[in-house]
């Protein structure tokens, strides 16, 4: 199959799929929930826990309601795609693999200035942190590169390497366009704007102006209650989904500007409790199996 990543957004994705598939990754599909980052996908969070090797790659649509610009900003979107690669344990040639993947999609590091700039990652919501870099291509952050150290408050043993490519940004580079909506989605004349411009306009309006805040507060409370219900019944994956849901509803409430600064901290703490609780329950459920299979491992 001939890929043309330099002229097609979808071919760039397919080229990454080809590349990571050839390097032993499972090619997964997006998680079917609204989430703020690919890291929320269970293939990242929950799989970062425990001793079992795990190599996967997938595209995850991300929702960042407050980043919406009604389709008027050439770079900012409230809905965009991340390409997520998770490699556990982190291989010693992970940087080389990553740079090789850039070459595959057409970025020549002797023409473009690729840099690893310190950027540690922390998600209080997930009780997670890691060290790593944002990878710059000519000054633009195109990838977040993280060695997970903790997830859900637990040490990652072993450590997973996470690569998060900002697909639109990369494509703008490769295709050399200044406006995200001008990206060629395929090689047959369909642009990114054809697919998403109207979506951005409407969703920005909904996020900022329309969404029924009473209903959102209600949804938040329901997700919180449902998470606890799932935890009580020892189905941590279901509980985790509700934590993801609560997190997104919280982001929508933020975009609507109805959460004060003081309340903000308390909402974040509530989401964190749900996410951590889910990770803890997942860990508790799986730990005995893991310990048996991997004697050198302990929680």
């Amino acid at each position, binding site marked *: 199959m001939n890929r043309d990543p330099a002229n097609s957004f979808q071919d760039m994705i397919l080229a990454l799929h080809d590349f990571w598939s050839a390097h032993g990754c499972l090619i997964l599909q997006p998680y079917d929930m609204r989430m703020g980052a690919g890291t929320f996908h269970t293939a990242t969070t929950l799989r970062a826990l425990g001793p079992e090797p795990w190599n996967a790659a997938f595209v995850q649509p991300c929702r960042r309601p407050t980043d919406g610009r009604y389709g008027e900003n050439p770079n*900012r979107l409230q809905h965009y795609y991340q390409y997520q690669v998770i490699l556990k344990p982190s291989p010693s040639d992970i940087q080389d693999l990553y740079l090789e993947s850039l070459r595959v999609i057409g970025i020549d590091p002797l023409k473009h200035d690729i840099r690893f700039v310190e950027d540690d990652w922390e998600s209080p919501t997930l009780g997670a942190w890691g060290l790593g870099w944002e990878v710059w291509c000519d000054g633009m952050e195109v990838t977040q590169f993280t060695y997970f150290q903790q997830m859900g408050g637990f040490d990652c043993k072993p450590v997973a390497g996470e690569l998060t490519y900002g697909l639109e940004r990369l494509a703008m580079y490769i295709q050399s366009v200044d406006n995200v909506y001008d990206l060629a989605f395929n090689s047959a004349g369909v642009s990114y704007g054809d697919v998403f411009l109207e979506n951005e306009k409407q969703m920005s309006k909904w996020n900022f102006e329309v969404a029924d805040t009473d209903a959102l507060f209600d949804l938040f409370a329901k997700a919180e209650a449902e998470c606890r219900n799932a935890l009580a019944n020892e189905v941590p994956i279901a509980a985790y989904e509700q934590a993801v849901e609560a997190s997104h509803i919280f982001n929508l409430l933020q975009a609507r500007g109805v959460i004060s600064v003081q309340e903000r901290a308390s909402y974040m703490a509530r989401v964190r409790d749900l996410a951590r609780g889910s990770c803890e329950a997942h860990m508790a459920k799986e730990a005995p199996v893991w310990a048996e299979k991997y004697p050198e491992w302990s929680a």
Partner: protein
Amino acid sequence: MSDFLLELRSEEIPARMQAGARAELEKLFRREMTSAGVDVAGVTVWSTPRRLALIARGLPDATQAVSEEAKGPPQGAPDAAIDGFCRKNGVTKDQLELRDVKGRQIYFAVIEKPGQSVRDLLAKAIPAIIREFSWPKSMRWGDASIGTDSLRWVRPLSGIVALLGDDIVECGVHGVTSGAATKGHRFHHSGEITIGNAADYAMKLRAGHVIVDHAERQDMIRTGAAAVASEAGLSLVEDEDLVIENAGLTEWPIPLLGRFEDDFLEVPPETIQLTARVNQKYFVCEDAEGKLANAFICTANIAAEDGGAAIVDGNRKVLAARLSDARFFWDVDRKKTLEQHAEGLARITFHEKLGTVADKVKRVAKLAEWLTSDAAAPNGDHKAARRAAELCKADLVTEMVGEFPELQGLMGGYYARAEGLQSDVADAIRDHYKPVGQEDEVPTAPLTVAVGLADKLDTLLSFFKIGIFPTGSKDPFALRRAALGYLRLVQANDLNLSLDQVVHAWDGRPNKALVSKLTDFLADRLKVQQREAGVRHDLIDAVFALGGEDDLVRLLARVKALQSFMDSEDGTNLLAGYKRAANILKKEDWQGSGSRIARTGDEDPMENVDDPQMRAIYAARAKTLSYTPEPAEKALIDALDAAGPKAAAAIEAEDFSAAMSALASLRAPIDSFFEDVTVNDDDPAKRSARLDLLARFRDAVHRVADFSRIEG
């Protein structure tokens, strides 16, 4: 003698940590060598994003053999003691020597320690250095991280070069083993570079497109950036922090100049510079008039095939996107007036016990208004002061300050001007946080001073009222900085502010407890400030010990007058006379001839006397003597009669140098008094009267400053 090279390679080390890492590497290396008995002279340390390097010149091949002696038990000691001594020193009994020590025969063990190969010592030291290396943040990685005790490093450690002379020092840590091979530039050089020895290390890396000496890279960036700016007819805005950071991000730095669209220059230049510097690590340039130019300088890490055209273009796009954001914030923020923004302050907690920022602003506005009407600046425009205070925190809820918190104040000033507020109000909003640092200029515009003082006073009083003070090194609410800011404002503007009245105005009622908390805290900061400025601490204490003064500018004026007085001959001599008088009074434990005569000079000696006739008698007795005084005694009495009221009046009039002159007039009389008059006269009436006179002299001096605190 050989030179030693150590290179520790890792994935990209954060730029900000490299200087610390170089120091840490040298420190640990020296420590290990010292404890191994290896003399180390010159050590050079270098860093790039991907390696730390150390070169130690002239290491010996082996440590010197040493012979050590240990003193043991005396002859005839129990066998167990002697055996134990032998075991401890690894010798047998027949190897012990008996020596005479002060007439006793004592066993000595002589232990010969052969010299050790420095290569062997290095092989042990290198893993120890790596294991003990302290990073601000470190991490685990890879297969080994399944266990808890795997090696921690700033990022994965990928290689070790260790060469003593031309030979590899063989060692390893957690699966990374030493060798002679390193890597060159990530993109300009593929494959390995074999290092021969310390001498060819930097040269071979240079051939591999790596400038290993960070100082050389810094210099390349400094001069290179200035050169590309000047080629474009501009001048570089120098920024040494950026030079160091970019040198920490590159192994082969190449400064490149790019342009952004002119239109962006309509947003405040500070936001452009901050965006460029903080987000993108770019330098900015100025045109011939010193105005910000539409140019940026990025530092690439490659010599690109196209001369950097694609890199510059890419960076231009990124900066354009950033500047679009800044312009978006600038536009959006200006859609609301500052007053409308200020409504949002009701949603920001200032402190859980002190309400919201809106509550604080109300208090500040009230105080600023008072300061410009009743207190410091009687000609102040109190309406404008109130207005400025009401709006001074509004920019905290704007998008721009949300993105760049360091622009607080500054943006408020811009927005105020943009909506057409009068310029002194805009200035007050912009500058009311000042002075922030030691170097920061101190505002003098009346409105700015009023709002700045009100803000700082409110912060101090609010926290003191709920019992929060800085402790030790902890000052989470920056109260010391607020106090220092307050002091510098009143000093620079020569403001006489009664803290008593300030507290009254702030709290709406007299509040003695709060006044004393505020005064004590400010006095402490003032002492620290004056001490740092080189004012003698004993003079500060001498004035502060008087108490009862709530105007710090006045206090300071007094300290200064005292300082110049003490630098004069009159001052030194008066101090000597004072000390002599005080010593005599202390020795005699003199409480005064009247039963309740003042001890400190502060009390009214008549306060406990109810009978009006008795008052008259006491008063007369204090004035008159039962004998004819000697001339020197009379002279001192007259001098005190004259100087006392003069000094008091001068202090009243805040003319402290006049008060000091009044004291100076006592110098000659007190000297003659001590010369000519016997205090301890046989006549108890004379003795008593003369001691009273010395007490009077002491008390008169005390009204100006507590001379007992003055050294010398």
